[in-house]
């Protein structure tokens, strides 16, 4: 595993409308937030047609948000975000050497964990992720009594990968964790929601991470431009020693330098990459192109 990787990321969202849009008001969450092992060297947001108003602020969870309005009639809207991001490899101990999971849970609950408050928010059910016995029961097979937390977390990640079918037709962007859990199918968003629901149902803090995954072309084939995608995964709080550990149930792995996180929230709804209200527009057609290009450095 390399110590760090550098990426030049381009994310282009285009709306093409059948009728003119009189006005649109939008929010995008597409620029990377700073994290202990993520550095953003440069980020640039280009909006066409140029908006009259564009303001940015950090949301409650610390993610950068850009709010803009286009007040002239238009038929197309494109938002292109280009970012240079450097990701450090995490240094995790051997999974069997990590703290016992019940101990992590109890220390947050009692407030003995010095960092409990940062994790507290993520213990509770949220808009798209309920908690309940069905999730706790499913998770119990991994979270056996006394098991080290990372070992148990990895086991749960692999089981979700094995037990749930990746199926882009099974769910929609607003499908709740309970529904995809029943269906035993979904996409990365659903897998992340299910894993978060399992962890929270055990009393463990877990959060939702949206970002990108570098695609590695088959041996001998060139990398396809624009074929990358947004991605999402879960993050588990492993106690003050371990901190947050990102786990990718879609790919059954610990997140390292192939993943680039952008935003963090309780579930998808907190970090939806683009929200908007448009006046008019008829039926819009949406295209999204993502490029995650590895570069040697940002010299």
């Amino acid at each position, binding site marked *: 595993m390399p110590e760090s990787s550098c990426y030049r990321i381009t994310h282009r*969202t285009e*709306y093409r409308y059948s009728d003119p849009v*009189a*006005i*649109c*008001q*939008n*929010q*995008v969450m597409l620029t990377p937030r700073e994290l202990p092992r993520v550095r953003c060297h440069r980020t640039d947001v280009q909006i066409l047609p140029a908006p*009259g*108003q564009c*303001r940015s*602020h950090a*949301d*409650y*969870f610390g993610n950068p948000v850009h*709010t803009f*309005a286009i*007040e002239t009639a238009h038929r197309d809207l494109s938002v292109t975000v280009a970012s240079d991001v450097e990701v450090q490899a995490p240094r995790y101990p051997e999974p069997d050497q990590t703290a016992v999971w019940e101990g992590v849970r109890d220390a947050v609950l009692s*407030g003995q964990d010095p960092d409990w*408050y940062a994790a*507290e*928010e993520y213990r*509770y*059910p949220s*808009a798209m992720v309920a908690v309940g016995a069905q999730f706790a029961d499913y998770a119990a097979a991994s979270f056996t009594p006394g098991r080290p937390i990372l070992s148990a977390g990895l086991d749960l990640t692999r089981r979700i990968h094995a037990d749930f079918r990746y199926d882009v037709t099974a769910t929609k*962007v*607003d499908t709740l964790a309970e529904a995809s859990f029943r269906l035993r199918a979904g*996409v*990365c*968003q659903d897998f992340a929601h299910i894993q978060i629901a399992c962890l929270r149902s055990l009393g463990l803090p877990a959060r939702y991470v*949206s970002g990108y995954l570098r695609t590695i072309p088959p041996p001998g084939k060139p990398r396809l431009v624009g074929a990358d*995608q*947004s*991605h*999402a995964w879960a993050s588990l709080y492993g106690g003050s020693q371990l901190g947050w550990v990102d786990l990718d149930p879609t790919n059954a792995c610990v997140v390292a330098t192939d993943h680039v996180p952008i935003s963090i929230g309780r579930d*998808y709804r*907190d970090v*939806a*990459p*683009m*929200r*908007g*209200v*448009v*006046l*008019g*527009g008829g039926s*819009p057609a*949406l295209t*999204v192109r993502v490029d995650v290009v590895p570069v040697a450095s940002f010299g």
Partner: protein
Amino acid sequence: MSTTKTNATTPFADYRPMPGQYDECFGPDGWPRRAFVRLVDHINGLGRESLDTLVSEGLALVRESGITYNAIEEEGERTRPWELAFTPLVVHAEEWRVLEAGLAQRTRLLEAVLDDLLGPQRLLRERVIPPEVVLSSPEFLRPFHGLPKVGGVRLHVTATELARDATGQWQVIGDRTRAPSGLGYLVENRIITSRAYPELIHHSNVHRVAPFFMRLRQLFESLSPRLTPNPRVAILTPGQKSYRYFEDTFLARYLGYTLVQGRDLAVRGGRLNLKTLGGLVPIDVLWRHISDDQCDPLELAPDAIEGVTGLVQTARSGNVSIANGLGSKLAQTPALLPFLAAANRFLFGGELQLSTVETHWCGQPESLARVLSDLDRFVLRPAFAVRGDGLIRPLQMSAEARQELIGALRDRPQQYVAQAMTSRSTTPVWREGRMESWYVALRAFQIQTGQDVAVLPGGLVRVSPTPQGVENPHGSTQLGQDCWVISDGPVDQTSTLLPGEHVPLRFVRGGAELPSRVAENLFWLGRYSERAESIARVLRTTMLRLVGEQSVGDLPEMPRLIAALAAIGQIEPDYAVKELQGSLPSLDDALPASLYTIDQQRGLSPSVTALADKATAVRDRISLDAYRIVQQIAQELATPVRIRGRADTRSAINRLSRLITGLLAFSGIGQESFTRTLGWRFLQLGRRIERAWQTAEVLRATLVDPDERSVLEAVLEATDSLMTYRSRYLLRLEPDATIDLLVTDETNPRSIRFQLERIVEVLDPLPLEPDEVGTPYERRLAFELLHRVRMAQPATLAIAEPEQRRATLDHLLEVLTEGLPELSNAITARYLIHTLPSQSLTGQV
């Protein structure tokens, strides 16, 4: 002052305070308390009969003022009149000062708690408040965290629900920090009660409520983000269907603010604007009466249609001042109640002066155990949201329901708050000739500025014969009551909101700042009032013939009048076809019954209902007299008079006459008491278009076939022109003179031409797009219709062709009956439909 124990014949003679409670009026010794002495004397002095008269006159006043209360009931939404108990609750100022201090302290505490929760969250980090109470609450909406304060505070107007326990201590039941309702009713209660006891209120040193509203107005003006001498303050109401609507229209009028709904607003250029006929005008201060989660479809729920897209960002940038601050709802979370005393110690280092009724949040195991061990002593409420209908009473539950509740409490304890059953004080209420002892709920109000807290002297009192009856603020068994705080010495006599003479007056003319929605409502108000009058006249003309001496079969005008009624949509079109009439109910039954039926969509009863509805929608724009008249009109058709199961023709005629008188009074107000603003123009447009159209329909059904004298007479009668005709031509009834008077005469206010002349006049000054070239479509249409009528010759119109029809008249009327609705649509398209449908976009992962 003499205080006598009441004697046997006086109203208070048989008053028996509810045992075991604190009675507001009488002490345990059976003597009136100090605050109530004058009132008891006064009412005893009035005697039973005068008191009855005073109450019934007062109730009539309530009904006439149209004070209503939209109570949301299970079968749908209904409006019922606000009901008032005519005995005020009286509190002595010395006692009030203690309560006032406690309320002010509590207001400052809630402000500090909210500011912490929307900021550093020290109360959660230090576990003064269990973090779960806030972080797991669906009411804690993250977009509101970190929004700037507005004028130094987040809670500008708050209310406190109070009950007085058996020892006489006031206790807090809950807080209202979102957008507390009740201030409008409170003012109405005060106005009506002071009319009932004019001398008493003057001599009792009752603290006025007007100064509170003056401070409120000063506060809102001070909040403006722009340095402007006249900041625009608007009240954002959830709309006509909401229980708040009556009150919001009242407050808008009382305070002189613009009443707006979400669809009247638009965020443009980063500022909040009101969409008016003349374009966008900026709003500086928004008094928000919609719920927090409804404020902005962009950042909150996509279906938040009561709000406006972009409002949260506008608040974040400080470009509009919203009161109460967005996110204020969090401070009224019932689950916070048990922790407020500790929060006060943590934040301010002292005790709360005003106690809270024993409350437990069941999310704590020890609290849950305590609640479960003594369940009957408590009522349960939802932990996170204030809901009038959310009250659960274990004491009144079946064993089965109780077990279910215990199961729910064990499963989801954090969802519940348990409050000890409230002990409430009682107070006298004069009801059906008896002085009864009813339970009291008091809602107190506070204004907070960056400097201080002002408590309204008094409050909104609800009384009910049962303690449960007052728990739900929307309950149907309760009455409102005025609350007097009285001093021994003189008090501030300000009782009006008119500015003093030292305030320089800026001359203004009402104008383009008319919200498009209001213009639309006024337009339809005009149309419906004219439609109702036109139908009522034709119907009356017809029914007068039904009850006349001659048999209906001998009257040549009857088939024509029936055809006219069918043409204007009052009766089944089949009545106009001779062959079908036999299969239909007889006219004697059908016509009177048609007054009350809603089967014919364009008929009288639906038109009158729509008229009342539109009047309600613009009640902040029309005078109280106009509103009252419309309510009386609607009342005429509310209940049919039936004799032996059949709607009665004679009483129907009387009602139609009263209806017509009412409609004339209403149009007189429109003419005489409505300034010639844009609003008036739309009212006129609606009225003139409808009258021209109705007249054209009636004439087409009656005059196209040549006629006998009696037909002409009936038509003149139905169009209110018979008197004018007679004054000109005496008893000679001729078709050409009749057609002239009703179609081409520019001086007859009932003629079609008169309507079209007015339409063209009224359309002319309406605003156009700045870069518009040429005559716009709706004006061309109006010119064209007017031109055709101007060019028509009455003599030609009256000519009957060989096949015995007036083809020229028929053609002209056809052009009018098609052109007038088209004109209405064209005006609507330009001025009244301001928004395209909006849609929400989401990206994808």
